[in-house]
Protein backbone atom coordinates (compact mmCIF):
# COMPACT_ATOMS: atom_id res chain seq x y z
CA UNK A 1 0.00 0.00 0.00
CA UNK A 2 1.51 3.30 -1.08
CA UNK A 3 0.74 6.31 1.06
CA UNK A 4 1.70 9.20 -1.15
CA UNK A 5 -0.60 12.19 -1.63
CA UNK A 6 0.48 12.30 -5.26
CA UNK A 7 -1.90 9.38 -5.77
CA UNK A 8 -4.79 11.79 -5.29
CA UNK A 9 -3.61 13.55 -8.43
CA UNK A 10 -2.52 10.51 -10.37
CA UNK A 11 -5.57 8.26 -9.93
CA UNK A 12 -8.11 10.64 -11.49
CA UNK A 13 -5.62 11.44 -14.25
CA UNK A 14 -5.22 7.74 -14.91
CA UNK A 15 -8.98 7.39 -15.14
CA UNK A 16 -9.05 10.39 -17.44
CA UNK A 17 -6.50 8.96 -19.84
CA UNK A 18 -8.25 5.59 -19.74
CA UNK A 19 -11.64 7.00 -20.72
CA UNK A 20 -10.93 7.61 -24.46
CA UNK A 21 -9.76 4.02 -24.93
CA UNK A 22 -12.74 2.59 -23.08
CA UNK A 23 -15.05 4.89 -25.04
CA UNK A 24 -13.98 3.32 -28.32
CA UNK A 25 -14.92 -0.10 -26.95
CA UNK A 26 -18.13 0.68 -25.10
CA UNK A 27 -19.86 4.01 -24.70
CA UNK A 28 -21.70 3.05 -21.56
CA UNK A 29 -18.70 1.71 -19.69
CA UNK A 30 -17.11 5.13 -19.19
CA UNK A 31 -19.76 5.86 -16.58
CA UNK A 32 -18.16 3.69 -13.97
CA UNK A 33 -14.48 4.67 -14.27
CA UNK A 34 -14.74 8.12 -12.63
CA UNK A 35 -16.80 6.80 -9.73
CA UNK A 36 -14.29 4.06 -9.03
CA UNK A 37 -11.46 6.60 -9.23
CA UNK A 38 -13.07 9.02 -6.78
CA UNK A 39 -14.00 6.23 -4.38
CA UNK A 40 -10.42 5.07 -4.44
CA UNK A 41 -9.34 8.66 -3.85
CA UNK A 42 -11.50 8.88 -0.75
CA UNK A 43 -10.07 5.60 0.47
CA UNK A 44 -6.51 6.84 -0.03
CA UNK A 45 -7.43 10.06 1.77
CA UNK A 46 -8.73 8.22 4.84
CA UNK A 47 -5.51 6.25 4.99
CA UNK A 48 -3.47 9.43 4.61
CA UNK A 49 -5.38 11.26 7.33
CA UNK A 50 -4.87 8.32 9.68
CA UNK A 51 -1.16 8.08 9.02
CA UNK A 52 -0.19 11.74 8.88
CA UNK A 53 -0.31 13.80 12.02
CA UNK A 54 -1.18 17.43 12.39
CA UNK A 55 2.30 18.61 11.62
CA UNK A 56 3.14 19.42 8.08
CA UNK A 57 4.84 16.81 5.95
CA UNK A 58 6.55 17.43 2.64
CA UNK A 59 6.30 14.80 -0.05
CA UNK A 60 8.87 15.07 -2.78
CA UNK A 61 8.37 14.09 -6.39
CA UNK A 62 11.04 12.78 -8.69
CA UNK A 63 13.31 12.02 -5.75
CA UNK A 64 14.60 15.59 -5.43
CA UNK A 65 15.09 17.44 -2.18
CA UNK A 66 12.45 19.82 -0.89
CA UNK A 67 13.27 23.36 -1.89
CA UNK A 68 14.38 22.30 -5.38
CA UNK A 69 12.05 19.63 -6.67
CA UNK A 70 8.28 19.99 -6.76
CA UNK A 71 6.83 19.00 -3.43
CA UNK A 72 3.36 18.32 -2.14
CA UNK A 73 2.38 19.38 1.36
CA UNK A 74 -0.01 17.41 3.46
CA UNK A 75 -1.29 17.25 6.98
CA UNK A 76 -4.59 16.05 8.33
CA UNK A 77 -6.03 19.56 8.11
CA UNK A 78 -5.48 19.64 4.36
CA UNK A 79 -6.76 16.08 4.36
CA UNK A 80 -10.10 17.09 5.86
CA UNK A 81 -10.61 19.91 3.37
CA UNK A 82 -9.68 17.55 0.55
CA UNK A 83 -12.05 14.92 1.90
CA UNK A 84 -14.96 17.36 1.86
CA UNK A 85 -14.07 18.51 -1.66
CA UNK A 86 -13.77 14.98 -2.98
CA UNK A 87 -16.99 13.93 -1.29
CA UNK A 88 -18.85 16.78 -2.96
CA UNK A 89 -17.20 15.90 -6.24
CA UNK A 90 -18.36 12.31 -5.81
CA UNK A 91 -21.92 13.44 -5.14
CA UNK A 92 -21.88 15.71 -8.16
CA UNK A 93 -20.42 12.92 -10.24
CA UNK A 94 -23.03 10.35 -9.18
CA UNK A 95 -25.73 12.89 -9.94
CA UNK A 96 -24.17 13.69 -13.31
CA UNK A 97 -23.92 10.09 -14.39
CA UNK A 98 -27.41 9.33 -13.17
CA UNK A 99 -29.29 12.38 -14.43
CA UNK A 100 -27.32 14.56 -16.81
CA UNK A 101 -25.31 12.01 -18.70
CA UNK A 102 -27.60 12.27 -21.71
CA UNK A 103 -27.47 16.07 -21.82
CA UNK A 104 -24.65 16.80 -24.20
CA UNK A 105 -21.38 15.33 -25.34
CA UNK A 106 -21.20 13.11 -22.29
CA UNK A 107 -17.71 11.94 -23.09
CA UNK A 108 -16.03 15.33 -22.84
CA UNK A 109 -17.84 16.31 -19.67
CA UNK A 110 -17.09 13.06 -17.87
CA UNK A 111 -13.46 13.49 -18.82
CA UNK A 112 -13.44 17.15 -17.85
CA UNK A 113 -14.95 16.37 -14.50
CA UNK A 114 -12.55 13.62 -13.56
CA UNK A 115 -9.51 15.66 -14.62
CA UNK A 116 -10.93 18.62 -12.73
CA UNK A 117 -10.91 16.53 -9.57
CA UNK A 118 -7.27 15.73 -10.15
CA UNK A 119 -6.48 19.40 -10.74
CA UNK A 120 -8.38 20.54 -7.67
CA UNK A 121 -6.53 18.03 -5.51
CA UNK A 122 -3.29 19.28 -7.01
CA UNK A 123 -4.19 22.89 -6.25
CA UNK A 124 -4.81 22.06 -2.61
CA UNK A 125 -1.76 19.84 -2.23
CA UNK A 126 1.03 21.51 -4.12
CA UNK A 127 3.74 23.47 -2.40
CA UNK A 128 5.22 25.00 -5.51
CA UNK A 129 4.13 28.27 -7.07
CA UNK A 130 4.48 27.31 -10.71
CA UNK A 131 2.91 23.94 -10.08
CA UNK A 132 -0.04 25.77 -8.60
CA UNK A 133 -0.28 27.77 -11.85
CA UNK A 134 -0.36 24.58 -13.91
CA UNK A 135 -3.05 22.97 -11.77
CA UNK A 136 -5.06 26.18 -11.71
CA UNK A 137 -4.97 26.32 -15.48
CA UNK A 138 -6.00 22.66 -15.65
CA UNK A 139 -8.92 23.24 -13.30
CA UNK A 140 -9.86 26.35 -15.25
CA UNK A 141 -9.95 24.50 -18.57
CA UNK A 142 -12.11 21.82 -17.00
CA UNK A 143 -14.28 24.67 -15.75
CA UNK A 144 -14.57 26.15 -19.25
CA UNK A 145 -15.75 22.81 -20.56
CA UNK A 146 -18.21 22.35 -17.71
CA UNK A 147 -19.50 25.90 -18.22
CA UNK A 148 -20.54 25.02 -21.78
CA UNK A 149 -22.62 22.15 -20.46
CA UNK A 150 -25.94 23.68 -21.47
CA UNK A 151 -24.76 25.68 -24.47
CA UNK A 152 -23.54 28.50 -22.27
CA UNK A 153 -20.98 29.62 -24.83
CA UNK A 154 -20.96 33.28 -23.95
CA UNK A 155 -20.44 32.82 -20.17
CA UNK A 156 -17.75 30.30 -20.92
CA UNK A 157 -16.00 32.76 -23.25
CA UNK A 158 -16.17 35.46 -20.61
CA UNK A 159 -14.76 33.04 -18.07
CA UNK A 160 -11.88 32.12 -20.39
CA UNK A 161 -10.92 35.75 -20.95
CA UNK A 162 -11.08 36.75 -17.30
CA UNK A 163 -9.40 33.65 -15.98
CA UNK A 164 -6.60 33.79 -18.56
CA UNK A 165 -5.88 37.37 -17.59
CA UNK A 166 -5.70 36.23 -13.98
CA UNK A 167 -3.39 33.34 -14.67
CA UNK A 168 -1.03 35.49 -16.75
CA UNK A 169 -0.78 37.92 -13.84
CA UNK A 170 -0.07 34.98 -11.58
CA UNK A 171 2.74 33.92 -13.92
CA UNK A 172 4.20 37.45 -13.82
CA UNK A 173 4.14 37.41 -10.04
CA UNK A 174 5.63 33.94 -9.85
CA UNK A 175 8.59 34.76 -12.05
CA UNK A 176 9.20 38.02 -10.21
CA UNK A 177 9.33 36.08 -6.97
CA UNK A 178 11.71 33.61 -8.55
CA UNK A 179 13.98 36.41 -9.68
CA UNK A 180 14.17 37.97 -6.26
CA UNK A 181 14.16 34.92 -4.01
CA UNK A 182 15.70 32.35 -6.34
CA UNK A 183 13.17 29.66 -5.60
CA UNK A 184 9.68 28.61 -6.54
CA UNK A 185 8.95 26.66 -3.40
CA UNK A 186 6.32 28.52 -1.37
CA UNK A 187 7.81 27.76 2.02
CA UNK A 188 11.34 28.82 1.14
CA UNK A 189 10.19 31.92 -0.75
CA UNK A 190 9.17 33.56 2.51
CA UNK A 191 12.59 32.85 4.00
CA UNK A 192 14.33 34.48 1.06
CA UNK A 193 11.99 37.48 0.76
CA UNK A 194 13.59 39.32 3.64
CA UNK A 195 15.48 42.33 2.34
CA UNK A 196 13.07 43.66 -0.23
CA UNK A 197 11.32 47.00 -0.06
CA UNK A 198 7.74 47.20 1.26
CA UNK A 199 6.64 48.77 -2.01
CA UNK A 200 7.79 45.66 -3.84
CA UNK A 201 5.74 43.43 -1.55
CA UNK A 202 2.69 45.61 -2.16
CA UNK A 203 3.01 45.33 -5.92
CA UNK A 204 3.69 41.62 -5.70
CA UNK A 205 0.78 40.90 -3.40
CA UNK A 206 -1.62 43.00 -5.47
CA UNK A 207 -0.55 40.95 -8.48
CA UNK A 208 -1.21 37.72 -6.63
CA UNK A 209 -4.52 38.79 -5.16
CA UNK A 210 -5.84 39.97 -8.52
CA UNK A 211 -4.49 36.85 -10.18
CA UNK A 212 -6.06 34.44 -7.72
CA UNK A 213 -9.32 36.35 -7.48
CA UNK A 214 -10.78 34.97 -10.69
CA UNK A 215 -10.92 31.35 -9.54
CA UNK A 216 -11.69 32.08 -5.90
CA UNK A 217 -14.55 34.49 -6.73
CA UNK A 218 -13.02 37.50 -4.99
CA UNK A 219 -13.62 41.07 -6.02
CA UNK A 220 -11.68 42.34 -9.02
CA UNK A 221 -12.11 39.43 -11.41
CA UNK A 222 -15.35 37.72 -10.44
CA UNK A 223 -17.65 39.06 -13.13
CA UNK A 224 -17.97 35.61 -14.69
CA UNK A 225 -19.43 33.96 -11.58
CA UNK A 226 -23.14 34.81 -11.80
CA UNK A 227 -23.27 34.38 -15.56
CA UNK A 228 -21.68 30.94 -15.43
CA UNK A 229 -23.82 29.82 -12.49
CA UNK A 230 -26.93 30.90 -14.30
CA UNK A 231 -26.24 29.04 -17.54
CA UNK A 232 -24.58 25.82 -16.44
CA UNK A 233 -26.11 22.48 -15.50
CA UNK A 234 -26.78 21.29 -11.95
CA UNK A 235 -23.51 19.37 -11.88
CA UNK A 236 -21.70 22.41 -13.17
CA UNK A 237 -23.15 24.65 -10.49
CA UNK A 238 -22.14 22.22 -7.76
CA UNK A 239 -18.68 21.99 -9.30
CA UNK A 240 -18.19 25.75 -9.34
CA UNK A 241 -19.96 26.42 -6.07
CA UNK A 242 -18.53 23.75 -3.85
CA UNK A 243 -15.50 22.16 -5.47
CA UNK A 244 -13.55 24.70 -7.52
CA UNK A 245 -14.17 27.79 -5.43
CA UNK A 246 -13.23 26.00 -2.21
CA UNK A 247 -10.02 24.67 -3.67
CA UNK A 248 -9.13 28.06 -5.10
CA UNK A 249 -9.87 29.77 -1.79
CA UNK A 250 -7.68 27.25 -0.04
CA UNK A 251 -4.93 27.92 -2.59
CA UNK A 252 -5.19 31.65 -1.87
CA UNK A 253 -4.97 30.98 1.87
CA UNK A 254 -1.99 28.72 1.30
CA UNK A 255 -0.16 31.36 -0.72
CA UNK A 256 -0.96 33.98 1.91
CA UNK A 257 0.21 31.83 4.79
CA UNK A 258 3.28 30.37 3.15
CA UNK A 259 4.58 33.20 0.98
CA UNK A 260 3.48 36.39 2.72
CA UNK A 261 3.47 35.30 6.33
CA UNK A 262 6.35 37.56 7.34
CA UNK A 263 4.16 40.16 9.02
CA UNK A 264 3.23 42.46 6.17
CA UNK A 265 0.57 44.27 8.12
CA UNK A 266 -0.50 46.73 5.40
CA UNK A 267 -0.98 43.82 2.98
CA UNK A 268 -3.32 42.00 5.33
CA UNK A 269 -5.12 45.21 6.22
CA UNK A 270 -5.81 45.93 2.57
CA UNK A 271 -6.83 42.33 2.03
CA UNK A 272 -9.27 42.59 4.89
CA UNK A 273 -10.76 45.64 3.23
CA UNK A 274 -11.00 43.87 -0.13
CA UNK A 275 -12.61 40.87 1.52
CA UNK A 276 -15.14 42.94 3.44
CA UNK A 277 -15.95 44.95 0.32
CA UNK A 278 -16.53 41.69 -1.54
CA UNK A 279 -18.74 40.53 1.30
CA UNK A 280 -20.86 43.68 1.36
CA UNK A 281 -21.18 44.05 -2.40
CA UNK A 282 -21.94 40.35 -2.84
CA UNK A 283 -24.68 40.39 -0.21
CA UNK A 284 -26.08 43.66 -1.47
CA UNK A 285 -26.37 42.47 -5.07
CA UNK A 286 -27.76 39.11 -3.96
CA UNK A 287 -30.40 41.05 -2.02
CA UNK A 288 -31.90 42.32 -5.27
CA UNK A 289 -31.99 39.01 -7.14
CA UNK A 290 -35.09 36.96 -7.71
CA UNK A 291 -33.37 33.90 -9.12
CA UNK A 292 -32.08 31.27 -6.71
CA UNK A 293 -28.98 30.44 -8.70
CA UNK A 294 -27.96 34.06 -8.93
CA UNK A 295 -28.58 34.42 -5.21
CA UNK A 296 -26.30 31.49 -4.52
CA UNK A 297 -23.69 32.86 -6.92
CA UNK A 298 -23.55 36.26 -5.25
CA UNK A 299 -23.75 34.75 -1.80
CA UNK A 300 -20.86 32.49 -2.77
CA UNK A 301 -18.84 35.58 -3.73
CA UNK A 302 -19.74 37.10 -0.38
CA UNK A 303 -18.68 34.02 1.54
CA UNK A 304 -15.33 34.01 -0.25
CA UNK A 305 -14.85 37.62 0.83
CA UNK A 306 -15.76 36.78 4.42
CA UNK A 307 -13.33 33.88 4.63
CA UNK A 308 -10.47 35.80 3.03
CA UNK A 309 -10.95 38.80 5.30
CA UNK A 310 -11.12 36.58 8.39
CA UNK A 311 -7.96 34.76 7.36
CA UNK A 312 -6.10 37.99 6.67
CA UNK A 313 -7.19 39.40 10.02
CA UNK A 314 -5.82 36.31 11.67
CA UNK A 315 -2.51 36.62 9.83
CA UNK A 316 -2.00 40.31 10.54
CA UNK A 317 0.33 40.10 13.48
CA UNK A 318 2.98 38.07 11.74
CA UNK A 319 1.84 34.94 13.48
CA UNK A 320 -1.45 33.16 13.10
CA UNK A 321 -4.27 34.01 15.47
CA UNK A 322 -5.49 30.47 15.81
CA UNK A 323 -9.04 31.01 16.96
CA UNK A 324 -10.01 33.26 14.03
CA UNK A 325 -8.21 31.11 11.52
CA UNK A 326 -9.86 27.92 12.77
CA UNK A 327 -13.28 29.51 12.68
CA UNK A 328 -12.65 30.63 9.09
CA UNK A 329 -11.64 27.11 8.17
CA UNK A 330 -14.76 25.75 9.86
CA UNK A 331 -16.82 28.22 7.85
CA UNK A 332 -15.10 27.12 4.63
CA UNK A 333 -15.92 23.50 5.46
CA UNK A 334 -19.56 24.24 6.26
CA UNK A 335 -20.05 26.24 3.10
CA UNK A 336 -19.06 23.27 0.96
CA UNK A 337 -21.96 21.17 2.25
CA UNK A 338 -24.60 23.85 2.56
CA UNK A 339 -24.01 25.35 -0.88
CA UNK A 340 -23.88 21.91 -2.46
CA UNK A 341 -27.17 20.98 -0.83
CA UNK A 342 -28.99 24.12 -1.98
CA UNK A 343 -27.68 23.91 -5.54
CA UNK A 344 -28.52 20.22 -5.78
CA UNK A 345 -31.99 20.63 -4.29
CA UNK A 346 -32.99 23.61 -6.38
CA UNK A 347 -31.56 21.94 -9.45
CA UNK A 348 -33.72 18.90 -8.76
CA UNK A 349 -36.85 21.00 -8.45
CA UNK A 350 -35.95 22.24 -11.90
CA UNK A 351 -36.80 25.92 -11.54
CA UNK A 352 -34.71 28.83 -10.42
CA UNK A 353 -36.85 31.95 -10.54
CA UNK A 354 -39.03 32.93 -7.62
CA UNK A 355 -42.14 33.04 -9.80
CA UNK A 356 -41.88 29.37 -10.68
CA UNK A 357 -40.86 28.21 -7.23
CA UNK A 358 -43.95 29.74 -5.61
CA UNK A 359 -45.53 27.39 -3.12
CA UNK A 360 -43.60 24.40 -4.37
CA UNK A 361 -43.20 23.19 -0.79
CA UNK A 362 -46.80 22.04 -0.84
CA UNK A 363 -46.07 19.66 -3.69
CA UNK A 364 -42.56 18.59 -2.83
CA UNK A 365 -42.49 18.54 0.92
CA UNK A 366 -39.44 16.45 1.61
CA UNK A 367 -37.19 18.12 -0.96
CA UNK A 368 -38.22 21.54 0.33
CA UNK A 369 -37.37 20.56 3.88
CA UNK A 370 -33.93 19.41 2.79
CA UNK A 371 -33.33 22.66 0.89
CA UNK A 372 -34.49 24.57 3.94
CA UNK A 373 -31.87 22.79 6.05
CA UNK A 374 -29.17 24.00 3.64
CA UNK A 375 -30.52 27.54 3.66
CA UNK A 376 -30.80 27.66 7.44
CA UNK A 377 -27.25 26.41 7.73
CA UNK A 378 -25.92 29.04 5.33
CA UNK A 379 -27.64 31.91 7.10
CA UNK A 380 -26.45 30.60 10.45
CA UNK A 381 -29.50 29.34 12.29
CA UNK A 382 -29.06 26.99 15.19
CA UNK A 383 -28.82 24.03 15.44
CA UNK A 384 -27.24 23.65 12.01
CA UNK A 385 -23.55 23.67 11.16
CA UNK A 386 -23.44 27.20 9.80
CA UNK A 387 -24.54 28.67 13.10
CA UNK A 388 -21.56 27.29 14.95
CA UNK A 389 -18.94 28.44 12.48
CA UNK A 390 -20.36 31.96 12.50
CA UNK A 391 -20.67 31.83 16.25
CA UNK A 392 -17.04 30.81 16.69
CA UNK A 393 -15.97 33.43 14.17
CA UNK A 394 -17.79 36.26 15.97
CA UNK A 395 -16.64 35.03 19.36
CA UNK A 396 -12.99 34.94 18.35
CA UNK A 397 -13.26 38.30 16.57
CA UNK A 398 -14.71 39.94 19.67
CA UNK A 399 -12.04 38.32 21.79
CA UNK A 400 -9.47 39.96 19.54
CA UNK A 401 -11.27 43.32 19.62
CA UNK A 402 -12.24 43.44 15.94
CA UNK A 403 -15.45 45.32 16.60
CA UNK A 404 -15.76 47.03 13.21
CA UNK A 405 -15.26 43.74 11.43
CA UNK A 406 -18.01 42.17 13.53
CA UNK A 407 -20.33 45.08 12.81
CA UNK A 408 -19.84 44.76 9.05
CA UNK A 409 -20.20 41.03 9.28
CA UNK A 410 -23.47 41.28 11.22
CA UNK A 411 -24.82 43.93 8.86
CA UNK A 412 -24.13 41.69 5.88
CA UNK A 413 -25.67 38.77 7.75
CA UNK A 414 -28.92 40.71 8.05
CA UNK A 415 -29.08 41.10 4.28
CA UNK A 416 -28.32 37.44 3.89
CA UNK A 417 -30.98 36.31 6.35
CA UNK A 418 -33.51 38.56 4.64
CA UNK A 419 -33.09 37.34 1.10
CA UNK A 420 -32.75 33.69 2.01
CA UNK A 421 -35.84 33.86 4.24
CA UNK A 422 -37.70 35.57 1.40
CA UNK A 423 -36.82 32.55 -0.73
CA UNK A 424 -38.09 30.17 1.99
CA UNK A 425 -41.24 32.21 2.45
CA UNK A 426 -41.75 32.16 -1.30
CA UNK A 427 -41.48 28.39 -1.27
CA UNK A 428 -43.81 27.76 1.63
CA UNK A 429 -46.44 30.48 1.87
CA UNK A 430 -47.25 31.45 -1.71
CA UNK A 431 -49.95 30.06 -3.94
CA UNK A 432 -48.73 27.23 -6.16
CA UNK A 433 -49.11 27.93 -9.87
CA UNK A 434 -50.88 24.84 -11.16
CA UNK A 435 -49.62 25.30 -14.71
CA UNK A 436 -46.08 24.43 -13.65
CA UNK A 437 -44.98 20.87 -14.25
CA UNK A 438 -43.38 19.21 -11.24
CA UNK A 439 -40.26 17.14 -11.81
CA UNK A 440 -39.96 13.67 -10.36
CA UNK A 441 -37.05 13.25 -7.98
CA UNK A 442 -35.48 9.82 -7.96
CA UNK A 443 -34.37 7.85 -4.94
CA UNK A 444 -30.69 8.34 -5.75
CA UNK A 445 -31.09 12.10 -5.76
CA UNK A 446 -32.90 11.98 -2.46
CA UNK A 447 -30.15 9.83 -1.06
CA UNK A 448 -27.50 12.37 -2.15
CA UNK A 449 -29.45 15.23 -0.61
CA UNK A 450 -30.07 13.33 2.61
CA UNK A 451 -26.39 12.49 2.97
CA UNK A 452 -25.48 16.15 2.56
CA UNK A 453 -28.05 17.31 5.09
CA UNK A 454 -26.94 14.55 7.43
CA UNK A 455 -23.45 16.05 7.36
CA UNK A 456 -24.86 19.48 8.18
CA UNK A 457 -27.01 18.21 11.03
CA UNK A 458 -24.24 16.03 12.40
CA UNK A 459 -21.83 18.94 12.54
CA UNK A 460 -24.63 21.09 13.93
CA UNK A 461 -25.25 18.78 16.88
CA UNK A 462 -21.62 18.04 17.60
CA UNK A 463 -20.04 21.44 17.03
CA UNK A 464 -17.68 21.24 19.97
CA UNK A 465 -16.26 17.88 18.98
CA UNK A 466 -15.86 18.93 15.34
CA UNK A 467 -14.39 22.26 16.37
CA UNK A 468 -12.10 20.47 18.76
CA UNK A 469 -10.94 18.17 16.01
CA UNK A 470 -10.46 21.15 13.75
CA UNK A 471 -8.57 23.16 16.31
CA UNK A 472 -6.48 20.17 17.30
CA UNK A 473 -5.56 19.87 13.72
CA UNK A 474 -5.26 23.50 12.84
CA UNK A 475 -3.69 25.01 15.91
CA UNK A 476 -0.02 25.64 15.53
CA UNK A 477 0.24 23.08 12.80
CA UNK A 478 -1.28 25.28 10.14
CA UNK A 479 0.64 24.81 6.98
Amino acid at each position, binding site marked *: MINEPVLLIVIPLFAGFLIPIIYLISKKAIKYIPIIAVFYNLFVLIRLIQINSTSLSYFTTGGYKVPFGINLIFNSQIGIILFAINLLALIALIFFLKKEFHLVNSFAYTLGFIIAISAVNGMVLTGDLFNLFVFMELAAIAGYIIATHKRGY*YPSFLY*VIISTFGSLLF*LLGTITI*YNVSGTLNMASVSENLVDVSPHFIVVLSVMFIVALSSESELLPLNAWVP*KVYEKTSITGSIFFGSVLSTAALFAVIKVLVLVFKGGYEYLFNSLTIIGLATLLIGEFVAFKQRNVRKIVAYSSIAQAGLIISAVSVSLKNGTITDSIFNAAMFQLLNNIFAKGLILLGVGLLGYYSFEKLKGIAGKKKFASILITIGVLSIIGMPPFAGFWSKFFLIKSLIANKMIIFVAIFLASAIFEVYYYLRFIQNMYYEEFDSKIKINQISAVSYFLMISLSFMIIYIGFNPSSVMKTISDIFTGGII
Partner: protein
Amino acid sequence: MGEIINYWTFIYGPLAIFLVGVYGLLTQKNLFKLVISINIMDLGVNLYIIALGYMDNASAPIYTAKLAVTSSRFVDPVPQALVLTSIVISVAVTAFVLALVIKNYEKYNTLDLIKIKGIEND
Protein backbone atom coordinates in the same frame (compact mmCIF):
# COMPACT_ATOMS: atom_id res chain seq x y z
CA MET B 1 21.36 56.06 -22.46
CA GLY B 2 22.57 52.55 -21.84
CA GLU B 3 20.54 52.35 -18.65
CA ILE B 4 17.41 53.49 -20.43
CA ILE B 5 17.88 50.84 -23.09
CA ASN B 6 18.44 48.26 -20.37
CA TYR B 7 15.23 49.16 -18.62
CA TRP B 8 13.30 49.25 -21.88
CA THR B 9 14.64 45.90 -23.04
CA PHE B 10 14.39 43.93 -19.88
CA ILE B 11 11.44 45.34 -17.97
CA TYR B 12 9.40 48.07 -19.58
CA GLY B 13 9.35 46.62 -23.09
CA PRO B 14 7.90 43.24 -22.11
CA LEU B 15 5.53 44.89 -19.63
CA ALA B 16 4.46 47.34 -22.34
CA ILE B 17 3.65 44.47 -24.69
CA PHE B 18 1.67 42.81 -21.90
CA LEU B 19 -0.22 46.03 -21.31
CA VAL B 20 -0.97 46.45 -25.01
CA GLY B 21 -2.86 43.19 -24.58
CA VAL B 22 -4.66 44.61 -21.54
CA TYR B 23 -5.52 47.70 -23.57
CA GLY B 24 -6.97 45.40 -26.21
CA LEU B 25 -9.10 43.64 -23.61
CA LEU B 26 -10.40 46.98 -22.41
CA THR B 27 -11.25 48.50 -25.78
CA GLN B 28 -12.04 45.74 -28.26
CA LYS B 29 -15.43 44.13 -28.68
CA ASN B 30 -14.82 41.64 -31.46
CA LEU B 31 -14.33 38.17 -30.02
CA PHE B 32 -11.38 37.43 -32.31
CA LYS B 33 -9.71 40.63 -31.18
CA LEU B 34 -10.11 39.61 -27.56
CA VAL B 35 -8.41 36.29 -28.24
CA ILE B 36 -5.63 38.14 -30.07
CA SER B 37 -5.25 40.44 -27.06
CA ILE B 38 -4.80 37.43 -24.80
CA ASN B 39 -2.12 36.06 -27.11
CA ILE B 40 -0.31 39.40 -27.07
CA MET B 41 -0.39 39.44 -23.28
CA ASP B 42 1.11 36.00 -23.39
CA LEU B 43 3.95 37.20 -25.63
CA GLY B 44 4.73 39.99 -23.18
CA VAL B 45 4.77 37.67 -20.18
CA ASN B 46 7.01 35.19 -21.96
CA LEU B 47 9.46 37.93 -22.95
CA TYR B 48 9.50 39.22 -19.38
CA ILE B 49 10.27 35.77 -17.99
CA ILE B 50 13.12 35.08 -20.39
CA ALA B 51 14.49 38.60 -19.89
CA LEU B 52 14.77 38.02 -16.16
CA GLY B 53 16.76 34.84 -16.74
CA TYR B 54 19.18 36.41 -19.21
CA MET B 55 22.81 37.20 -18.45
CA ASP B 56 25.47 38.89 -20.53
CA ASN B 57 28.19 36.71 -22.02
CA ALA B 58 26.47 33.54 -20.94
CA SER B 59 25.64 30.67 -23.25
CA ALA B 60 22.51 28.62 -23.77
CA PRO B 61 22.03 26.07 -20.98
CA ILE B 62 23.10 23.08 -23.04
CA TYR B 63 26.29 21.19 -22.29
CA THR B 64 28.34 20.60 -25.40
CA ALA B 65 31.78 19.22 -26.12
CA LYS B 66 33.21 22.72 -26.51
CA LEU B 67 31.99 24.04 -23.18
CA ALA B 68 33.64 21.25 -21.35
CA VAL B 69 34.17 22.68 -17.90
CA THR B 70 31.10 23.35 -15.85
CA SER B 71 30.77 26.94 -14.87
CA SER B 72 28.05 29.27 -13.85
CA ARG B 73 28.27 31.06 -17.19
CA PHE B 74 25.07 29.52 -18.40
CA VAL B 75 21.74 31.24 -18.73
CA ASP B 76 19.26 30.20 -16.04
CA PRO B 77 17.31 27.19 -17.37
CA VAL B 78 14.33 27.51 -14.99
CA PRO B 79 12.61 30.49 -16.67
CA GLN B 80 13.04 28.81 -20.02
CA ALA B 81 11.34 25.69 -18.75
CA LEU B 82 8.50 27.76 -17.31
CA VAL B 83 8.02 29.63 -20.60
CA LEU B 84 7.91 26.37 -22.52
CA THR B 85 5.11 25.20 -20.26
CA SER B 86 3.27 28.48 -20.53
CA ILE B 87 3.46 28.52 -24.34
CA VAL B 88 1.94 25.05 -24.56
CA ILE B 89 -0.80 25.97 -22.10
CA SER B 90 -1.54 29.12 -24.06
CA VAL B 91 -1.93 27.23 -27.34
CA ALA B 92 -4.31 24.82 -25.59
CA VAL B 93 -6.40 27.69 -24.29
CA THR B 94 -6.32 29.39 -27.70
CA ALA B 95 -7.55 26.26 -29.47
CA PHE B 96 -10.40 25.92 -27.01
CA VAL B 97 -11.40 29.55 -27.06
CA LEU B 98 -11.37 29.69 -30.85
CA ALA B 99 -13.74 26.74 -30.90
CA LEU B 100 -15.87 28.73 -28.46
CA VAL B 101 -15.78 31.74 -30.79
CA ILE B 102 -17.10 29.60 -33.63
CA LYS B 103 -19.89 28.23 -31.42
CA ASN B 104 -20.72 31.73 -30.23
CA TYR B 105 -21.11 32.83 -33.83
CA GLU B 106 -23.29 29.82 -34.58
CA LYS B 107 -25.53 30.64 -31.63
CA TYR B 108 -25.78 34.42 -31.80
CA ASN B 109 -24.88 35.16 -35.44
CA THR B 110 -22.56 37.95 -34.42
CA LEU B 111 -19.07 38.40 -33.08
CA ASP B 112 -19.77 41.68 -31.31
CA LEU B 113 -19.45 41.29 -27.56
CA ILE B 114 -21.95 44.03 -26.79
CA LYS B 115 -24.59 42.63 -29.16
CA ILE B 116 -24.13 39.16 -27.64
CA LYS B 117 -24.56 40.66 -24.19
CA GLY B 118 -27.75 42.31 -25.38
CA ILE B 119 -29.11 39.03 -26.78
CA GLU B 120 -28.17 37.25 -23.54
CA ASN B 121 -30.02 39.73 -21.37
CA ASP B 122 -33.24 39.59 -23.37
